[in-house]
């Protein structure tokens, strides 16, 4: 860097501070609220930014014991886990074919993946809700396990196509020369090398399914079948009484797995992000 003077440093780090506050404050507020007593949350107090009247785990206790939170978490785990697994398998095969093999129509299929990747779930939730109903799987985890791959597969395929291209062809070629067929070359040479890419895809797919909203809201309506994010948003609020403390506790507990994964793989997240990004 040229002339990194103290003034310039102040300007840069000082200028970044508002961005940090903006980005992090909602999480801080979530945590603070979940630890306050109801009296403090709703009472008129001097400074709401801190917990001043003693921390309490009551809200966490309430969410875990008095609601179906644990059941919703399990639903979310099952649905996100299965749809991620299905999508990772389907996408790895498709991405390998699109990135590596030469065949008629490869351009067309590549374009189709790109376009389906852009299709927002909001465009399809109505016809899909009819389809799900006619298959008789409405209000079951299957409705979501079946439909989540519609946004996961294009995303993962897109991401993995880029990854497969970074693997040198020579490695595969030498296996082919040594008499392996394409299938063997793919399974033994390319897939192990692509493992980090597949892991990234799995991580992203899981995060996206964990937070996906509209299908989960539209296709599943009975309380015990709900995904955790939908359960929190629709079941914890009753009439005019707001359970802000327990709502924040639940949101925090539900965000935690994602934040932990992110903490471990921050770099991979960052590089994968620009590879197409989680759907907004």
């Amino acid at each position, binding site marked *: 860097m040229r002339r990194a003077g103290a003034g310039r440093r102040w300007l840069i780090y000082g200028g970044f501070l508002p961005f940090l506050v903006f980005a992090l404050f909602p999480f801080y507020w979530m945590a603070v609220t979940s630890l306050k007593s109801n009296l403090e949350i709703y009472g008129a107090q001097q400074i709401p930014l801190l917990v001043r009247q003693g921390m309490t785990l009551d809200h966490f206790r309430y969410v875990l014991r008095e609601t179906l939170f644990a059941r919703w978490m399990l639903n979310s785990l099952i649905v996100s886990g299965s749809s991620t697994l299905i999508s990772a398998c389907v996408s790895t095969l*498709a991405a390998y074919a699109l990135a590596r093999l030469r065949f008629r129509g490869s351009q067309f299929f590549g374009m189709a993946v790109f376009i389906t990747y852009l299709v927002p*779930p909001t465009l399809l*939730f109505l016809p899909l809700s009819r389809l799900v109903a006619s298959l008789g799987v409405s209000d079951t985890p299957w409705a979501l396990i*079946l439909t989540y791959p519609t946004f996961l597969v294009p995303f993962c395929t897109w*991401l993995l196509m880029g990854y497969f291209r970074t693997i040198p062809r020579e490695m595969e070629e030498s296996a082919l020369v040594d008499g392996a067929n394409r299938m063997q070359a793919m399974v033994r040479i390319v897939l192990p090398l692509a493992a980090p890419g597949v892991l990234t895809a799995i991580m992203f797919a899981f995060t996206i399914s964990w937070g996906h909203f509209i299908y989960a809201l539209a296709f599943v309506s009975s309380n015990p079948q709900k995904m955790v994010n939908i359960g929190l948003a629709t079941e914890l609020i009753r009439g005019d009484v707001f359970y802000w403390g327990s709502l924040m506790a639940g949101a925090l507990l539900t965000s935690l797995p994602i934040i932990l994964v992110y903490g471990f793989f921050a770099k991979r997240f960052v590089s994968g992000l620009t590879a197409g990004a989680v759907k*907004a």
Partner: protein
Amino acid sequence: MPKIEADVTIPESPGGIAAETSLRAPRISPWKPRAGEERLAYVLLAPAVLLLASLIAYPFLTSLYMSLTDRRIAMPGRFVGLRNFSELLLEDEIFQQTLWNSGLYVVGAVGLKTVTGLAAALLLHGMTRGRPVFQALLMLPWVVPASLSVLAWWWMFDPMSSVINWVLVNLGIISRPIRWLSDPFWARSAIVITNVWRGLPFFALCFLAGLVSIPRELYEAAESDGAGPMASFWHITLPLLRPMLGIVILYSVVMTIADFEIVFLLTRGGPRNSTHLLGTLAYHVGLSGGRLGEAAAISLFIFPVLAVVAYFMLRAVRHGAEVS
């Protein structure tokens, strides 16, 4: 000036959206296609094609058909031609309002994300140390699912005990609490703020990737020619960042106009329909109201935007491929 349009990706990224090359013709490979290569390709593609055809293409076609009928839940529909569309556009005030809301939302949110994202990217780019940490922290709103974090915003906009109001009042910026979610103007502002909060990290990171790829020699040359930082920004940074700006903005336009959960969680489209977007209105009319034909027509208004954006993105990707 060298053309670097094709190099706007993060170096370690497995496939940046900007530099993704899938739409190029397959590179000429040193070996000839072997017997069976084509068949293997179709076998490997089959599951994905089957899934996308039955769960994207087929539902899309049924929604096209549904939009031409007056179908309701549990009632077979009659074919009514384009009546749903014409009624929506010409007579339905709530729908007209929704189109206007969507326009404001997209322009406001995407515009703000572009400006703030660029500012954050420039600051991160100028950091000499600690950049990975700051970058990781800035990313959190993008990483945590919106359906959870928006609950925190909902609470922050609470009419009785909004912490934002508390801060603003105590800083002396406002004298009376803002009615965040009950006044149309402030409700619209609230959903834009929340959308910007959620999307800013993505913009910043993509722009940062673009900034990193601009050769430093260009700045050094400009500096030795006596150009100040502002001149460098306008004449080097912005033009070279343009391809990345274009792609990120296009992508965000589709995702923003199709936004659902921010509005659903914060306002449900209110007050007085001033925050309804196409998705939330379609949900309201179709699943809550049971008027499937009309709702299908509403959500199909997302399609032209999608088509235009897809066209320009394909063009941008192709162009990038040609330059390289």
